[in-house]
């Protein structure tokens, strides 16, 4: 684990805590921008260059500008939170319980296949020759679906590989995504239109 990973992870945690704990809404938005940039850095470290760029452009650019516009439009004051009431206590207890459950599952190795993961370490060249062994009984998984090694992807280009997958294997979800965007745009226009009672003046 490199030092950069540790620093970025800690900054992501700190900024996430800032989102939910700061009083002023604009500070929450700024903290969320920091969190998204930290996650984009993690995407870069995880060999997802295209996704890091998309994260910065769409999230830290478009979505957060929209948030800041709405904050400026509605101009919310600082939130006067109550003291420790029953709802807060139940929420925190439930969240801590679920967190411990997931941490236990991850530490137990039940959520991922160790035989397939082990091929990404130093023995990557050997694993590329032998078929991947997945599943609990050592049965061979589909070698075509899991053969995107980071070096091969980088040789071709991350954007090229993502685009190739997006327009061949995932073509139908991609088209449904465009339909979803159109529905969202029409819905936003419909929701924010002015209501005129009777008169047709604009």
């Amino acid at each position, binding site marked *: 684990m490199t030092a950069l990973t540790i620093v970025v992870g800690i900054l992501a945690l700190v900024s996430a805590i800032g989102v*939910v704990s700061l009083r002023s809404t604009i500070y929450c938005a700024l903290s969320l921008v920091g969190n998204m940039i930290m996650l984009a850095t993690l995407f870069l470290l995880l060999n997802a260059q295209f996704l890091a760029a998309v994260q910065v452009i769409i999230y830290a650019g478009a979505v957060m500008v929209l948030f800041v516009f709405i904050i400026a439009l509605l101009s919310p004051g600082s*939130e006067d939170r109550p003291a420790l009431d029953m709802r807060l206590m139940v929420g925190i207890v439930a969240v801590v319980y679920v967190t411990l459950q997931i941490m236990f599952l991850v530490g137990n190795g039940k959520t991922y296949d160790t035989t397939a993961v082990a091929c990404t370490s130093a023995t990557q060249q050997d694993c590329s020759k032998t078929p991947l062994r997945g599943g609990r009984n050592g049965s061979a998984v589909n070698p075509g679906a899991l053969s995107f090694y980071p070096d091969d992807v980088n040789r071709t280009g991350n954007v090229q590989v993502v685009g190739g*997958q997006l327009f061949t294997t995932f073509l139908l979800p991609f088209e449904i995504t465009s339909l979803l965007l159109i529905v969202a745009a029409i819905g936003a226009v419909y929701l924010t239109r002015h209501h005129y009672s009777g008169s047709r003046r604009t």
Partner: protein
Amino acid sequence: MSLDVFPWLIGLSTALFMIGATGVLVRRNPLVVFMSIELMLNAVNLAFVTFGRFLNSMDGQIFAFMVIVVAASEVVVGLALITTVFRTGRELDIDDLSEMRE
């Protein structure tokens, strides 16, 4: 990035998701609740990309891309709803939104 980072990244994703869930449960400003939902979606994206990286698969990045698109459209519709509800000078407090219950 070596293999021993993998549980830490999944743990970081879990922690981010649960911090976002805390924000959704505890905060009363609808804008901050929306930001917490964005935080949860980002945590899921991190989990997708991490699993995809360490399973030598491209599907994690594709699904994270889909999640980003869905989150963008969700923000558009949600903020339109918030502006419509609160444009008339109401106080920004989701505890006041109880018209649908009655």
